[in-house]
């Protein structure tokens, strides 16, 4: 590194090492990603075409696992549950998040404090959220028992034990956990809108409602995009919350693809089918994430 090195002939080993240093530093990460992300993806992809059961095995069975998968009732339930849960979760989170953000954007006193309260569930583990709501919604001791104790003896709220309704309790708990975060995203979007434009619209005579509907909300498109991507990918990956809240039950009423994959792979010893279900999950997420990442990274360039 001293000046005397100036005279060194170019292209020496030290020099070449120095030039390659940045790539060298990056290479462990590249290796890790190549093996533990993409290698593993291909491994699982491969397994989904094999007759693996308790352990990976390499007998090629073609599309049989996928055919079987779609014949399994539990998978059917899981996919439908995901559709119900995912769409409700995304819509309710967005509506609630946007509402809260707009309410908080009205020059509120103690805004920081209120924001903190709305957002804290995001710091919790889904397991904790699941435990809290599990007992809170439990008819024996939770809200139903409490209201009945207050004198309204005919009050019923036993969704968590109801095959038809149990999936909605997952939505309730998930929305509780995430909506504050969506609010924060929208609030950041709102704060990014040029205040002079708001003034101009007020001078143009727009009512508060028209102001938000015509001027503000259309400009929140990027925030909606981000919220959608984040929520959709969280919905597809949802696992912990179901395990803690309902354990997939009653019966298989709240099974989601993530829990299905886990139980078929590790407890029912149908690894090939488990792998096939994971592949379907990956494809679904990729369909959402890849275009998003593509547009984000392109824009940057």
């Amino acid at each position: 590194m001293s000046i005397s090195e100036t005279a060194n002939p170019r292209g020496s080993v030290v020099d070449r090492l120095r030039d390659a240093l940045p790539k060298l530093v990056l290479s462990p990460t590249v290796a890790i990603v190549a093996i533990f992300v993409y290698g593993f993806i291909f491994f699982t992809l491969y397994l989904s075409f094999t007759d693996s059961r308790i352990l990976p095995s390499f007998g090629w069975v073609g599309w049989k696992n996928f055919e079987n998968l779609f014949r399994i009732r539990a998978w059917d339930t899981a996919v439908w549950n995901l559709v119900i849960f995912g769409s409700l979760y995304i819509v309710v989170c967005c509506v609630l998040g946007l509402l809260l953000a707009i309410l908080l954007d009205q020059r509120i006193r103690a805004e920081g404090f209120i924001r903190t309260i709305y957002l804290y569930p995001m710091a919790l583990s889904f397991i904790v959220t699941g435990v809290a709501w599990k007992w809170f919604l439990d008819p024996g001791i939770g809200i139903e028992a409490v209201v009945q104790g207050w004198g309204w003896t005919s009050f019923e709220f036993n969704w968590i034990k109801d095959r038809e309704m149990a999936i909605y309790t997952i939505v309730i708990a998930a929305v509780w956990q995430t909506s504050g975060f969506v609010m924060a995203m929208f609030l950041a979007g709102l704060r990014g809108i040029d205040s002079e434009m708001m003034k101009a619209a007020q001078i143009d005579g727009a009512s508060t409602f028209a102001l938000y509907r015509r001027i503000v909300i259309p400009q929140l498109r990027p925030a909606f995009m981000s919220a959608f991507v984040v929520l959709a990918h969280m919905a597809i990956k949802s696992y912990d919350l179901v395990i803690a809240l309902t354990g997939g039950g009653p019966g298989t009423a709240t099974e989601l693809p993530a829990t299905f994959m886990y139980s078929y792979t590790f407890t029912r010893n149908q690894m090939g089918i488990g792998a096939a279900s994971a592949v379907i999950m990956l494809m679904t997420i990729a369909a959402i994430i890849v275009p998003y990442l593509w547009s984000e990274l392109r824009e940057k360039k």
Partner: protein
Amino acid sequence: MGFLDIKQATKSYGALQVLQETDISVEEGEFLVLVGPSGCGKSTLLNMIAGLEDITSGEIAIRGKSMNGVKPADRNIAMVFQSYALYPNMTVRGNISFGMEMHGIQKQEREKRIDQVSDLLQISHLLDRKPGQLSGGQRQRVAMGRALVREPDVFLFDEPLSNLDAKLRVDMRTEIKKLHQKLGTTIVYVTHDQIEALTLSTRIAVMFGGYVQQLGTPKEIYDNPANMFVAGFMGSPSMNLFPAKVVSGDGKPAAEIKLADGKTAAVPFAKDALASSIGRDIILGIRPEAITDKDGADRNSQAVHIVEAPVEVTEPAGSDTFVVSQIGGKDVTGRFRADVAVNAGDVFPFAFNMEKAVAFDPKTENRIA
């Protein structure tokens, strides 16, 4: 062979060639300014000298030693950046000392040099502050101090004044010039400001589109621009360029120009260079200070000619009044004395000092006379 030699250097990014083959030889103690609009390749060339960018082909040598492949730290150069690039987490002292530290200079020697340089630049009282606590002008001084302590062979300046306000920029310009005269160091300086180029340099390279358009002393560049680009780029307000035709008047070549009121006028050239080009279309170039009111014309000139032309706009600028007329469909600006009574709409005598006129080929845009 000069002190800093740029030999047939080029730079491309993939298929895009941003610097065409360039040859510049800089003598020791010279102040070379690379000037041009953004994207002309001047900063690329500077970064190539610094070693921050590779040379695609050709060679750059300092003191006769090829610098190709030598890393920036080992070229014995110092650089002042546009944003000053002061390390935010270090004090001024730390900033100035860092480079010496990296080059293994003893602490005692470092202290001595810091003292000298901070005296020279009058920043001694700032040494223990962080860059965030300094004004723009102070940061500028620290950045120069950081370069100076290295006692490099070549100083590189990358638009160092462009982040300062107008007043401070003029002051710092003078100071850089003083510093150069005092220390006699070799400097390569990049700017897009042609006034900086003219005031500071001993030589200027005007660049555009990856080519060096003209390399010369400030006077050569200003008086004899090699082509229409250089003519238009250097000088403010810029040189008037308008179409004319070479005609023969009294046995001498003259430029026939078309005035706004439809009349034509023939102004004889001071030189005979275009005698063989009668009938040829040209672009005539005359700087605003060579188009004056009658009494303001250069008394030493042998070739002042009066043209009566309609005045379109007058722009009083305090010390002078700029008077605009249309010639050959182009706005042509003259620089009149401030107290000349001239108004828009008047037909007024304009005095053309043809000694300062140049002519360009309309197709190649190169100067022909």
